[in-house]
Structures are given as structure tokens and as C-alpha cells.
């Protein structure tokens, strides 16, 4: 009575969904005007951001409410670097700053700026992870502490006006340039999509390794993992730093595509939005995070035009419905739906 491996059966379905998603993203520019292409190019970095949340929450069970911290820092460093590489940003000039402040001098080199936009969030996450993810602080307390970090950063960004532009943010950020040529809206769309596809491929490869299994094991039974001999803290810190790098990269793409950054990119509401995208799509499949992000952001942009702020209410209702009716998320449920086997498992669980 050898049972088929349910995980193996998932693979074609997941691949089919990924192909569907990729086709949609590739063909989208053919069906839409420049304005819509630009909007979509802003959603794709958020999909990468959703991947980073899924790695941390969906695969490892760490629910960080501060994932916007690396995203926001990445976005800000990229934006400031882009500004100071061509001169003194106007917001600094209003404070009488006539030369690039010493802390920003390394950012005048765009390549170094890009590297620092990823390295600094990683370093910060490494320090926070080492202190926070030792096993002494768990579950909801990790969420609370990361939430506090998110708020602290947003306050800092809001108040350091001389350096960050305060609540106005940093403006006049140019789109990415390749070989001295600033990408057009459509080129940028495909550039962002390419990076996102690469990010997805790396995440998919990473989660299919034995390391991915260890992370899954930490999610369901952290203690047992330690008693097998794994240093749980190292694994958690690794995935925390890795997902921070991913979030920072998403932040860079977002900043360069939007042309501006504002303090809300570092705050709690973005972190929570990402958690909702992943919850709606389904945790721990990567594909679920991508779909959830695309679906809710698409809906948001359509609905906000029609019903305005009431959209927030709609999203709350959607979340409640998902949590109560399909706790595995939309894609998660599609991927794991196995009516017969599921019934069997329930029966066996009852017997056991």
C-alpha cells in the first residue's frame, strides 16, 4: 500500500501556475498602454518583496512585521544614491547643504550605492537576527519586536529631513540605466520582470535543497531540529538575512521604477500588506505569494478608482473570508487539494 508522494504530485500543478503567471507578465505590455505598464512595473518589485516574506513566514514560520525595514532601507539608499550621483538633491539644498554629506559620499558612485543598498539591510538584519532569533524570543514576540523596529525606522526617516527629505521623501529618481542608456517604461518593465524571475528561480532552488527541508522542520518543530543537532539560530539568521537581501533588492527596483520614495515604504502598513498578500495567495509555495501580491495589488488599483478608501474595508473582508474558508490560501488550496487522500488522512488521524 505504497502511497504516492503528495509533494511530487504538486510539482506539475505548481509549474503550470508559474508558466501561467510568467506568460501573463510577458504578454501584459502588449495589451496595455504605457501608463498601465508603468503601474504593473511597480507591482512586480512588490512580488519579489512578497517572496521574501514567504521565505521567512511561509517556509520558516518567522512572522516578521518589519520586513519593510530592509525594503525601505534598500529603496532609500538607492534613491539617495541616484540623487547624489548627479548633484545635490533639492531637499538638501533647502537646508543649505552645498556638498554631499560625508555619510552619503560613498553613494555618489552608483555601483557602490547599489551594493550598499543591499549590504546595509543585510548587515542590520544579521545583527537583529543574532539578537532576536536565538530561541528565547518566539512567535508573536518576534512579530512585536520587528513591528517596533519598523516604526522606529519610519520615525527616523520622517525626522531626519536633512538627509531623507522627511515626509516628502526623495524625488526625481531616474529609472535604471543599462550601458549609459536610461531604460524606457517598457524596457524597465521587462528589466524588472527579468530580475523578479531570477529572484524567483533562486528562491525556488533554495527551498528545494536540504536547507529548505531544515527550514520546514524548524517551522513545525523547532525543538526537535535542535535535538537532531542543527543550530536553529544559524538557520533562522541565514534565512532572515537572505530574505532581507531579497527585500532590499525589491526596494531598489521599486524606488527606481516609481521615481520617488516616501517614509511609508519603511513602515508597518507595507509589512502587514505583504503578510496579507502571502496569506491570501497561500504560504510556503512561492507561487502563492506571487499570485496573492498580483491579485490584491491589481484589485486595489482597480477598486480604489471606483470606491476609494472603502477598498481598505474590502481587503479586510477578503482576508477574513480567506482565513475562515481557505486557510491554506487560494493558490495553496489549489496546489494541495487532494480530496481522496485528504479524507484518508483524516480517517487515519482519527484512528491514530
Amino acid at each position, binding site marked *: 500500500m505504497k*502511497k504516492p508522494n*503528495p509533494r511530487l504530485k504538486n510539482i506539475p500543478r505548481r509549474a503550470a501556475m508559474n508558466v501561467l503567471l510568467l506568460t501573463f507578465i510577458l504578454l501584459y505590455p502588449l495589451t496595455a498602454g504605457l501608463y498601465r505598464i508603468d503601474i504593473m512595473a511597480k507591482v512586480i518589485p512588490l512580488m519579489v518583496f512578497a517572496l521574501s516574506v514567504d521565505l521567512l513566514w511561509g517556509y520558516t514560520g518567522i512572522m516578521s512585521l518589519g520586513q519593510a525595514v530592509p525594503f525601505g532601507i534598500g529603496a532609500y539608499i538607492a534613491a539617495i544614491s541616484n540623487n547624489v550621483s548627479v548633484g545635490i538633491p533639492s531637499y538638501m539644498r533647502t537646508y543649505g547643504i552645498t556638498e554631499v554629506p560625508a555619510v552619503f559620499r560613498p553613494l555618489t558612485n552608483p555601483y557602490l550605492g547599489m551594493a550598499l543598498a543591499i549590504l546595509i539591510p543585510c548587515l542590520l538584519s544579521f545583527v537583529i537576527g543574532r539578537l532576536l532569533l536565538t530561541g528565547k524570543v518566539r512567535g508573536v514576540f518576534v512579530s512585536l519586536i520587528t513591528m517596533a523596529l519598523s516604526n522606529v525606522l519610519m520615525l527616523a526617516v520622517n525626522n531626519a529631513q536633512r538627509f531623507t527629505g522627511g515626509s516628502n521623501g526623495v524625488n526625481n529618481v531616474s529609472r535604471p540605466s543599462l550601458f549609459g542608456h536610461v531604460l524606457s517604461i517598457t524596457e524597465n518593465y521587462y528589466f524588472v520582470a527579468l530580475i523578479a524571475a531570477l529572484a524567483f528561480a533562486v528562491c525556488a532552488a533554495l527551498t528545494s535543497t536540504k536547507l529548505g527541508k531544515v527550514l520546514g522542520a524548524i517551522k*513545525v518543530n523547532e525543538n526537535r531540529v*535542535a*535535538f537532531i*543537532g542543527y543550530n536553529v539560530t544559524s538557520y533562522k539568521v541565514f534565512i532572515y538575512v537572505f530574505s532581507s537581501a531579497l527585500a532590499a533588492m525589491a526596494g531598489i527596483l521599486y524606488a527606481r521604477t516609481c521615481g520617488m520614495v516616501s517614509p511609508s515604504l519603511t513602515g508597518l502598513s507595507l509589512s502587514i500588506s505583504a503578510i496579507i498578500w502571502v496569506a491570501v495567495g497561500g504560504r510556503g509555495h512561492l507561487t502563492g505569494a506571487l499570485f496573492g501580491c498580483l491579485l490584491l495589488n491589481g484589485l486595489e488599483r482597480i477598486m480604489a478608482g471606483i470606491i476609494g478608501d472603502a477598498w481598505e474595508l474590502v481587503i479586510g473582508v477578503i482576508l477574513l473570508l480567506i482565513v475562515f474558508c481557505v486557510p491554506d490560501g487560494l493558490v495553496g488550496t489549489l496546489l494541495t487539494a487532494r480530496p481522496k487522500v485528504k479524507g484518508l488522512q483524516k480517517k*487515519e488521524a482519527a484512528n*491514530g
Partner: protein
Amino acid sequence: MADAILELMDVTVDFKGFLAVDSVSLSVGRGEVRTIIGPNGAGKSTLIDLITGKTRLKFGKIVFDGADITLRPPHEIAHAHGIGRKFQGPNTFFDMSVFDNLLLALRGSTRVRKNIFYRKTGDTRSKINDILKLIGLEDKEDALVSALSYGEKQWVEIGMVLAQDAKLVILDEPTTGMTADETYKTGEMIRAMRKDRTIIVSEHDMDFVRQVAETVTVMNQGKILAEGTFEEIRQNPEVISVYLKE
């Protein structure tokens, strides 16, 4: 004992004034099967928590295979020193297959980088097959652990401890919730696994203790009450009064 693999020297665990383990000294010989019995709350599980690093002791010293493991973290005791532990009640990764549970436990590198580039080898396959045979789950390697019976889950965990290739295996009430038949099979597994290992079993089931035990240690109220062969213990009047009569 001349060749002791594990020595507890005067260890005490203090839970806010309650001495769960009270100056216990215990010596387990290399290759021995030691059974620890005692009423509920006697301190058996705490003693095991102590050896595996889950609970921190207040006084005393623990030496394993020549190394001082007092207050070392659990993952180090498990990997570097080689003490494997089966928890009370099945404690597995329930949403993974039996094979993956064993693969995770299999002795190998526990470093992050090594596990990103890890590849299964034929050797891995054959080691896991051996374990599957020993725990009698050859035909269920792809089943999710959550779909197994209670007894089978316990065996998966015994298999995980075997896969760790530990020098000392500690089994905390391995037969809880098993049928008489399953309990007997578990006893046979333990006899089969003792070849090159030292085993400590904490247990309630006296038939099972008789089946596997060489030396029996009886605990009561955090202290060691008696130690001896199964027959000696069974006839010890003190033991009878606190435990066996129940």
C-alpha cells in the same frame, strides 16, 4: 564503573525552589542498556532534559565520553558529542514524509552552507533503507508522518535517533500509547540497535522493562531510590512501597 560513557556528578535542577532533580549521581557504562523507572513526577524526564541540554542544571557536572557537556547547547550535545534523544510522545516533522524525517536526522554536516549544496548519495539511500527495515516501515517511506498510526510515529522517531548515529541514545517512554504487540516490537528494535550504542530508556511498562533492561535505576522525588538488576529491583521493599504497588 571502569568504563563509564556518561557520568552525572551530584546534579541538581531547581525549578524556583522545587528540586526536580536533587543531587543525583549516576554512571552509565559503555554499551549498557539502562532503564530508568519511577512514578510520575519522579524527575525522569527532567534528568533526560538535563543530559540533552534542554534544562539547565543549578549544581553539578555532566561528563560524556571524556568531555564536559555541562550547560552546552542542545544542538552541540546532539551533533558534536553524539547524544540522540527520542521525546515522550511522537515528536517528528509531521508534514514531511518518513524518508525526509530520516534524511534530516541522518548524521552529516549540520552547517548552513553544506546543506544548500547537499546532494543525496547512494550511501545515504542505503543507510536510510537499513533504518526503514529496522523500524519496519520499508513500504511507507513516502507517506506523510501525519498519516501514520501512533505507534508508527513513535518508530519514525526511534528511526530518527538511529539515523543520528549517536553514541548514546536516550528514549523517553518510547512505548507510550502502543499496543502490547507494538510494545514488544519496540523492545526488539531496542535490542537490535544496542550493538554499538549505549541506551537509556525511561519507561513505565514493567513487561517492557523486563524485556530490555540490564540495569534498572529507580527514581523518586528527584532522587535515586535504588539501582540494580530487574530482579533485585522487583524485590526491593522500598521500591515496592513507592512504585511497583501502584
